[in-house]
């Protein structure tokens, strides 16, 4: 990037990457980051190719082959990385892995100049000194015969020649002979023998180096016999954690057996999972409840605050109407809820919800749905995500399978007293509805279902 004067452009595009979904907003330019952690590497792999491609666009015709090779090389390496992260493989994916690795090795020579080590650089510097001496001799010999313009041309030719010779010298002495690049050729074989690579990640073990000995040392009496104390301490902690997990699993099993259906205020039902696997309970982003069951202090709001957060008059009317109907439906005596009672009601406004969903590979991943209402998100625009809502009960056929994308507008939690005088929590959501066009059938041109 620096050689082709694209570093500023690259940094500008890098810094302007939006914090979409679970991507972390960029606070530093690419150059300022001194060390990458695993999460940042995974995130970077999702947009690196786009950033590089945009940065290397344009340029002179002489630069095009080099820049294209650089893009191809990065593309192949990222593809290989993506394939390696699969949690299951078949012959096709392994064959693709091989192909991408072969492509990477084909194009990697474009980065050879920057692989020059100390010896190669020293050799190149010696060559430069020798060539400069030759140039001086040539200049002195022909000082009387050269005109100023011819001298300028000769000097330019010498400069290009020296630069070219140094690059060639560096490239001849540089190589990619380091273990990490060679180990990639064993990955396919490894997957064939032992399965997907993710289960052999060493991240956990490396992390354990950081915490286990330090915690054990801090808990010991710092005497000469601290080593057995460190081991015993860690073993005790592990036993407690395993027991806690077992108890949680038992409690979860009991909850699943007595699972109840939740009703949304608009009368719609949450879209059921596509597979028979049970999904984890959604996690609402914000402070947790206090131990006495009341709302956390920082999040306590009243109904007026909710209305203040809603700028659209139609939305306010809908919140009034929907909440009142919901409260009436849920209250055991079905009494009418007055405006005063509604305004005095305590509620928590949330700006996001973290949900466990099934990824492409069948793995469980966390996705964040944000709903800031009319408030801005991190100093920018408001952020209200679209969610899939099943608007038709039962099994549906068609492209959307009975689901429609609705845009969240408000997300809040209320507590009601049930018949046993115990608090029950309900999460309510206000969403902008959509209507499918063309009866929900695919558009013949774009092959998408259009909604309005």
């Amino acid at each position, binding site marked *: 990037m620096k050689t082709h004067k694209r570093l500023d452009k690259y940094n500008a595009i890098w810094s302007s990457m939006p914090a979409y979904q679970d991507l972390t907003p960029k606070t530093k330019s690419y150059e300022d980051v001194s060390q990458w952690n695993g999460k940042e590497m995974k995130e970077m792999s999702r947009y690196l190719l786009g950033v590089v491609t945009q940065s290397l666009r344009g340029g002179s015709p002489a630069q095009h082959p080099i820049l294209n090779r650089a893009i191809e090389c990065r593309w192949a390496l990222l593809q290989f990385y993506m394939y390696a992260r699969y949690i299951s493989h078949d012959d096709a994916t392994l064959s693709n892995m*091989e192909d991408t*690795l*072969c492509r990477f*090795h*084909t194009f990697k020579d474009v980065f050879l100049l920057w692989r020059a080590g100390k010896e190669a650089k020293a050799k190149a510097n010696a060559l430069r000194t020798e060539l400069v001496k030759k140039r001086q001799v040539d200049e002195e010999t022909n000082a009387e015969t050269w005109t100023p313009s011819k001298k300028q041309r000769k000097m330019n030719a010498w400069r290009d020649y020296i630069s070219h010779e140094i690059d060639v010298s560096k490239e001849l002495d540089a*190589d*990619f*002979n*380091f*273990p*990490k*690049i*060679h*180990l990639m*050729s*064993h990955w*396919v*074989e490894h997957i064939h023998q*032992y399965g997907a690579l*993710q*289960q*052999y*990640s*060493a*991240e*956990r*073990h*490396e*992390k*354990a180096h950081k915490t*286990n*000995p330090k915690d*054990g040392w801090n808990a010991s009496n710092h005497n000469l016999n601290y*080593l057995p104390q*460190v*081991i015993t301490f*860690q*073993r005790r902690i*592990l036993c407690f*954690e*395993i027991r806690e*997990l*077992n108890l949680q699993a038992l409690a979860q099993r009991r909850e699943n057996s007595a699972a109840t259906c939740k009703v949304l205020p608009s009368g719609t039902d949450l879209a059921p999972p596509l597979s028979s696997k049970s999904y984890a309970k959604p996690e609402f982003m914000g402070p947790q409840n206090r131990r006495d069951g009341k709302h956390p202090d920082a999040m306590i709001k009243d109904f007026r605050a909710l209305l203040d957060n809603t700028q659209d008059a139609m939305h306010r009317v809908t919140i009034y109407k929907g909440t009142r109907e919901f409260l009436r439906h849920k209250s055991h005596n079905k009494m009418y809820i007055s405006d005063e009672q509604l305004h005095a009601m305590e509620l928590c406004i949330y700006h996001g919800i973290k949900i466990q969903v099934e990824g492409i590979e069948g793995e469980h991943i966390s996705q964040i749905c944000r709903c800031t209402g009319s408030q801005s998100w991190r100093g920018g625009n408001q952020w209200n995500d679209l969610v899939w809502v099943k608007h038709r009960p039962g099994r549906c056929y068609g492209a959307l399978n009975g689901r429609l994308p609705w845009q969240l507008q408000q997300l809040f939690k209320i507590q009601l007293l049930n018949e046993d005088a115990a608090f029950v929590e309900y999460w309510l959501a206000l969403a902008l509805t959509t209507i499918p066009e063309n009866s929900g059938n695919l558009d013949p041109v774009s092959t998408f279902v259009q909604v309005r």
Partner: protein
Amino acid sequence: MPLTHSVVMVALRPIPVRNRNIPPKQLDGLRPTNRKGLNDVLQRVLHPLTFVQNPSAESGYYNVLCADGNFRRCKPVLAAWLADCPEYSGLHHLERHVCFWCECPKYELGDHVPPDKQHPWWDHNLYRTLNNAKTKVADAELLSRHVHRGFTAF
């Protein structure tokens, strides 16, 4: 991705002091000693986990409380390693910056190797035999394969 609970600390291995405080000449003499110390510690730690050295039906077996509440008679056996590249080099008694999977020469590490033209794998039995031979030819053979002398861990 393995869980945090899959990692259990069983022992703390002594590590040599920081190399930067030691003169280079003294460091060259210390390195074989450090390697030998590591090899001896590994041999002692892993001895109960090797099935070959404890073939009898009762040695090393004990009752384990399993997740279903039942006790089972179990014997832990060393099945595989999981480590980073520097640790692998230490475990396999190899020189630094070589492949710990195969006998690829150092000057060919950057080349693309198709699956059907892979280099031969490390042969620990061969290295143990060469190490026990204690001849100049055997030492030269070990050196050509980037393996240090004193290989006894496995």
